[in-house]
């Protein structure tokens, strides 16, 4: 028997119709997941029926016998408070900063009315979602908790009043990769224990497929395809679903054919980076401790770790755009000094690409000038007309045409902007690209096309790549070898497939479980 049933829902904001013809059914004890890229209308479809977006819903929406479309204010409040619990994406901002964890949990539990819970009962609720030292945490403010702990508090608050329906809007996408599996497992466990109906929203097929009973694929405000999870993934009917499944990297897919590698180009030895502690406190924070690694010609090396593992700091030190406290970085046996002391020809060897493509392009510059900038600085002897030809060639390499030359970054999509950023990185013919989470901020379809582009460039130009990421499955599509970092130190390294088949370190196992 279904707890929540939506038939033929349409949603409009300011007269613009953004969602149309959506059917959703969620049954008690089961999980229905909506999958789609950003702008597909998935969050809108989940939150609008409860009046949590500026949108206006039409159609038939029945929650436990209550018609939400025709509900008056009182019934709506009842539906929100008694029947439904919500978990949102950003645990950092979704809790009220000036109320203690205990106060917020009490408020959540009291939304169905008295009695107030005792301190002991509140602590039990925190323990149930896997928080240790629960009693102590009741008096803490949200900012003292880590992201994963906050999301556990969110879950405890969402189910404190024993709702029938739990709506989880991207519950794990703001979390560290190694935590995602744990949070999803917790949600599964609670759902079965309490017979909760769960509606899950995600952009990431891989993170929901083991948990959802029913999948709904959305694109541009419409349902593309729906069905039971196993059925839909093994036997997708629609072209869009097929592309989405193919784009989602998974560890059980066949290993890619990577090109042969040459001699060692880059070698780093005993690299350590420390930062002074913020404020007045003494001492230093070791972001990266005693790391040694090498990259060969034409080889892609994955540096994988959770947030705070030091992977970005290491990448910046290698690219010469971040501090280096001690250790040596050498290029074909010749030592590369600290960033300011590098000569122009040394700088041309290594080029970076960053996570947020739109933010890493100057919004006031045209694409033509953005791409040309490294040539102006690194190869200043090149004449203007030759430079223009180089820009065109670089854009062609990243599969963008001449018509992009005069566009501004604001008019580019995320994928196009990342292609421009890659064009800027390769125009001065570097030997090594350092890509810091270069596909993480992109939709799965776009991210996988960027990965394909990188493989193509790797083969055509014999480029070496350092691919910094938290996502082992994506890294496997590109990289020969892997280095796993935890707390600034290498915990495991080796051939990509060997490590995936037989991971030794706990960190690696967690990251693999999360992929």
């Amino acid at each position, binding site marked *: 028997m279904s707890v929540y049933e939506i038939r033929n829902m349409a949603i409009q904001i300011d007269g613009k119709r953004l969602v149309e013809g959506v059917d959703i059914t969620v049954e008690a004890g089961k999980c229905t997941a909506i999958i789609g890229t950003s702008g597909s209308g998935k969050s809108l479809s989940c939150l609008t029926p409860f009046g*949590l977006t500026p949108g206006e819903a039409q159609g038939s929406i029945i929650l436990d016998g209550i018609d939400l479309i025709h509900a008056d204010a009182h019934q709506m409040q009842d539906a*929100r*408070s008694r029947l439904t619990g919500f978990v949102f994406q950003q645990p950092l901002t*979704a809790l*009220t900063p*000036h109320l203690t964890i205990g106060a917020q949990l009490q408020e959540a539990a009291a939304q169905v009315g008295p009695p107030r819970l005792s301190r002991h009962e509140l602590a039990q609720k925190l323990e149930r979602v896997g928080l240790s030292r629960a009693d102590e945490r009741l008096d803490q403010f949200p900012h003292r908790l880590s992201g994963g702990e906050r999301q556990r508090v969110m879950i405890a608050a969402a189910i404190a009043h024993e709702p029938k329906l739990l709506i989880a809007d991207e519950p794990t996408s703001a979390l560290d990769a190694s935590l995602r599996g744990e949070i999803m497992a917790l949600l599964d466990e609670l759902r079965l224990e309490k017979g909760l109906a769960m509606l899950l929203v995600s952009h990431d097929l891989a993170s929901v497929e083991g948990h959802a009973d029913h999948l709904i694929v959305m694109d541009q405000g419409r349902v593309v395809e729906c069905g039971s999870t196993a059925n839909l993934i093994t036997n997708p009917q629609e072209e869009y679903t097929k592309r989405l499944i193919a784009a989602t990297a998974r560890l059980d897919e066949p290993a890619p054919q990577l090109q042969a590698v040459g001699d060692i180009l880059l070698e780093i030895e005993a690299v350590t980076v420390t930062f002074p502690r913020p404020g007045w406190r003494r001492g230093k924070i070791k972001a990266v401790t005693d790391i040694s690694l090498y990259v060969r010609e034409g080889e892609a090396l994955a540096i994988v770790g959770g947030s705070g593992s030091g992977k970005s700091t290491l990448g910046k030190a290698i690219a010469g755009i971040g501090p280096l406290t001690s250790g040596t970085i050498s290029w074909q046996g010749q030592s590369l000094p600290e960033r300011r002391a590098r000569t122009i020809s040394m700088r041309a060897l290594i080029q970076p690409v960053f996570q947020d493509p739109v933010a890493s392009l100057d919004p006031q510059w045209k694409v033509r000038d953005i791409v040309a900038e490294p040539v102006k600085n690194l190869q200043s002897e090149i004449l203007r007309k030759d430079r223009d030809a180089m820009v065109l060639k670089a854009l062609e390499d990243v599969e963008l045409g001449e018509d992009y030359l005069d566009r501004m970054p604001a008019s580019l999509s995320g994928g196009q902007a990342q292609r421009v950023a890659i064009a800027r990185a390769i125009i001065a013919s570097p030997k090594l690209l350092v890509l810091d989470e270069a596909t993480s901020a992109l939709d799965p379809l776009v991210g996988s096309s960027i990965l394909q582009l990188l493989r193509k460039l790797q083969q055509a130009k014999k480029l070496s790549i350092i691919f910094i990421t938290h996502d082992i499955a994506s890294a496997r599509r590109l990289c020969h070898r892997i280095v796993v970092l935890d707390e600034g130190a290498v915990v495991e390294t080796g051939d990509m497939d060997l490590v995936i088949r037989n991971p030794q370190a706990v960190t690696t196992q967690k990251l693999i479980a999360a992929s």
Partner: protein
Amino acid sequence: MLALVARRLMTAVPTLLAIILASFFLMRLAPGGPFDGERPLPPETQAALQTAYGLDKPLWEQAWIYVSRLVQGDFGPSLVYRDFTVSELVAQGLPISLTLGGLAIILALLIGISAGLFAAVRAGKAADKTIMMIATVATALPTFVTGPALALFFGLWLGLLPVSGTGEGWSWLIMPVVALALPVSGAIAKLTRAGLATVLKQDHIRTARARGLPETKILFKHGLRPALVPVASYLGPAAAGLLTGAVVVETVFGLPGLGRYFVQGALNRDYPLVLGVVTLYAALIILFNLFADLIYGWLDPRMREG
């Protein structure tokens, strides 16, 4: 939190000392002296007075003597009101000024926050625009315009309130306090509205709404406190403004507060009196800034860790 208070009080001492020394020397740079009347005194009387008050000693020595007496709580004698010490004069004026300033800031907070709250709830509607326009006008009008205007209207025409002096009861306080509070309340209203507009869009408000809370509870329990952070940071400078603004209001309404002594003392070159008032003002402003920081920490617990 105690650590914050202790640290602030420790930095307050050198700050105060710097302010006192700077005012001491700046004041002595100004031409004229305390004994230059309309009829010049005979040179020998002048010299005798100078010696009696120690004004013939080198400047550095005078400064040293002043500061060392100050440490013992002695503000020195007034050079113009010859029968009084500075402490006695301040003791007369300070209660009036503090009452005026304190009531004004409370009134400004009450008016400002409620107006800002009301405007934020009705954001974009006519009520919002009207309130914000009034707030702009209130902020822009100087007290030497609003003060006399109030006195003219309520005092002379309607005869409801006393125009000048302290008189009986509390009614004499109303107009000076309102005149002093108006510009500050306008600024607070604007800050509150802007703060709420930002906070009400944040995720934790959506969480509260998803919990089925009534809108008023969302506003007061989840929205208001973080929205008041900008107001708290404005309170320090606002307190300073109220103290200096009191000079004008006290003159307009003929109240024997500190402001009058401040202005008179400066005009008469009554060095110890001006220094005494400056020291007091500086100490109060430092204290208000400390209060503002403590309120800050209460409003947003994230600020408690420096």
